């Protein structure tokens, strides 16, 4: 089931005019700075806000069509919504919160599904508690479980990590990754944090000043300069999808394979064949014209220069193609000149450090 969204609304000074599609499964990130209209868009999808003009299709179902004067109320849309600050019902136990939507669902998840969600989110020991007795991270997990158990056909997540500190974020992210890998429900994940998007999303839609500025696979967008141009974020990084090829326990290394070669990372406790998403910061990549010998870095990838961008601060951002993956290296302009780097030239990318986000088993 694919979901198609179009909405247009004037807020006096701010105009929302967005149209995009969400795939049948996986995580689509709705990314953009604060005030780009992200929450308005998902409120329109959920039915909490009715735009002046809009048309939203969920597979064969039309849930909004302003031209036909049709707007299905939120409770009949079968869309799960995880709010930024959880919005748990304060007078109900965690268990009653979790089952609130389940009790009202047309097609109820069976007991084993309930047990699976409770287990996946680690909520078993919290069931009798009131929300006031939960930590921020626990609240987010309950909110996630509550939305999941209402058997939605689409899950909307509105910056579920924004209200959490770094430690709590690190606690929740693995749950979200598990959800992404285990669930067949398509998810629309709203965030203004590029890191989260890079880590979680398969596709991304970039919203800027109420309009869709770019959309595509995270790997493609991350490996290009589009995001940097749109967001002005200078901390570039690239994303590569890999699989575990080999566990080299004696060296304490896991070997990850992708189309452009192999990357060695400190041991990941996952079986061979498991999917691993790898992020590489542009600052962590050096370039060499000749294959470096006797070098401490484990990862040297043979690649072809695709594009070079100079910035005002004396940097040259070099995008290299390595198989079908793209890696961005940030070097100085002086080095680029000295090495005579030009598009089409063969270089060796020396990767000093890699961030690996293993998918759940």
């Amino acid at each position, binding site marked *: 089931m694919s979901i198609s969204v179009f909405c247009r609304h004037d807020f006096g000074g701010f105009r929302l005019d967005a149209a995009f599609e969400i795939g049948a499964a996986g995580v689509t990130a709705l990314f953009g700075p604060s005030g780009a209209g992200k929450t308005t868009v998902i409120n329109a999808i*959920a039915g909490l806000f009715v735009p002046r003009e809009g048309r939203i299709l969920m597979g064969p179902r039309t849930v909004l069509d302003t031209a036909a004067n049709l707007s299905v109320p*939120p*409770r009949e849309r079968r869309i799960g919504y995880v709010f930024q600050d959880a919005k748990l019902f304060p007078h109900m136990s965690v268990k009653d919160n979790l089952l609130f939507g389940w009790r009202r669902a047309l097609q109820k998840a069976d007991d084993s599904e309930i047990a699976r969600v409770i287990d996946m989110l680690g909520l078993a020991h919290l069931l009798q508690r009131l929300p006031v007795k939960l930590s921020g991270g626990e609240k987010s997990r309950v909110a996630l479980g509550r939305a999941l158990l209402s058997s939605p056909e689409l899950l909307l997540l509105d910056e579920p990590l924004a209200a959490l500190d770094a430690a709590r974020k690190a606690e929740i992210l693995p749950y979200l990754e598990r959800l992404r890998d285990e669930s067949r429900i398509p998810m629309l994940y709203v965030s203004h944090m590029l890191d989260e998007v890079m880590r979680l999303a398969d596709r991304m839609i970039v919203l800027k000043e109420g309009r869709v500025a770019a959309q595509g696979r995270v790997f493609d967008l991350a490996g290009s300069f589009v995001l940097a141009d749109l967001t002005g974020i200078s901390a570039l990084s690239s994303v590569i999808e890999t699989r575990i090829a080999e566990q080299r326990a004696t060296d304490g290394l896991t070997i990850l394979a992708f189309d452009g070669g192999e990357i060695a990372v400190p041991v990941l406790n996952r079986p061979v064949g498991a999917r691993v998403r790898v992020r590489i910061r542009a600052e962590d990549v050096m370039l060499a014209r000749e294959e470096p010998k006797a070098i401490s870095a484990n990862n040297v990838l043979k690649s072809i220069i695709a594009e070079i961008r100079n910035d005002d601060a004396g940097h040259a951002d070099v995008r290299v193609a390595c198989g079908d993956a793209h890696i961005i290296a940030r070097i100085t302009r002086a080095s680029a000149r000295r090495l005579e780097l030009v598009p089409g030239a063969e270089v060796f990318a020396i990767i000093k450090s890699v961030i690996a986000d293993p998918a759940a088993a």
Partner: protein
Amino acid sequence: MTFWFTPPELEALLLSLRVSLVAVSVALPLAILTATALAHRNFPGKALIDGAVYLPLVLPPVVMGYLLLLLFGTRGPVGAWLLETFDIRLVFSWKGAALASAIITFPFQVRAIRLSLEAIDSGLGDAAATLGAGRIDRFFNLTLPLALPGIVAGAITAFAASLGEFGAIITFVSNIPGETRTLPLAIYSALQSPGGEDAAMRLSLIAIALALIGVTLAEIADRRIRKMIGR
């Protein structure tokens, strides 16, 4: 001074409790509806309704009683209809005293309930809607339980205030022993009769005790319920 009540004094006390109990319970559902409308809806004439609800707080009770007499007297438009259709006569009856008390204390209930309704995060209603709850479902399972502290506090405050109502009652339903002579009216009557000071003192002490109990109960109930609903 003896501390024992005479039968007429006891009668006044019990009558006061009955009048106030009926007044508060009849007005409560209406107060919840009014508070809900004022807190969450915008409709034409809202300001007028808002003002009318709070009018009894500032209007002299005697005026209130007089207006009631005009409306609900046996020849008044509503009073005549009630008498004809249901054989209900409010004038010179404890039911009339309850009606007067209900109207006079209505603002206390509406205000307390409205405040607690407005304190509820509207996002909770949105969350419930996305989880499949319709409007009535949300009202009974979300709004009402979360407004419970205000509802209980409002009811107890109204009850305590109702025990003290004097002007509207004496104007509307007069001062009939055993029928409309509530505690404040009994105190007034005692002071009017020679040698009634002892009785007035005893009854006044009771009134003070009841008021204190009411206010304390409201406080305790509020704290308990807040804990119960996790706020």
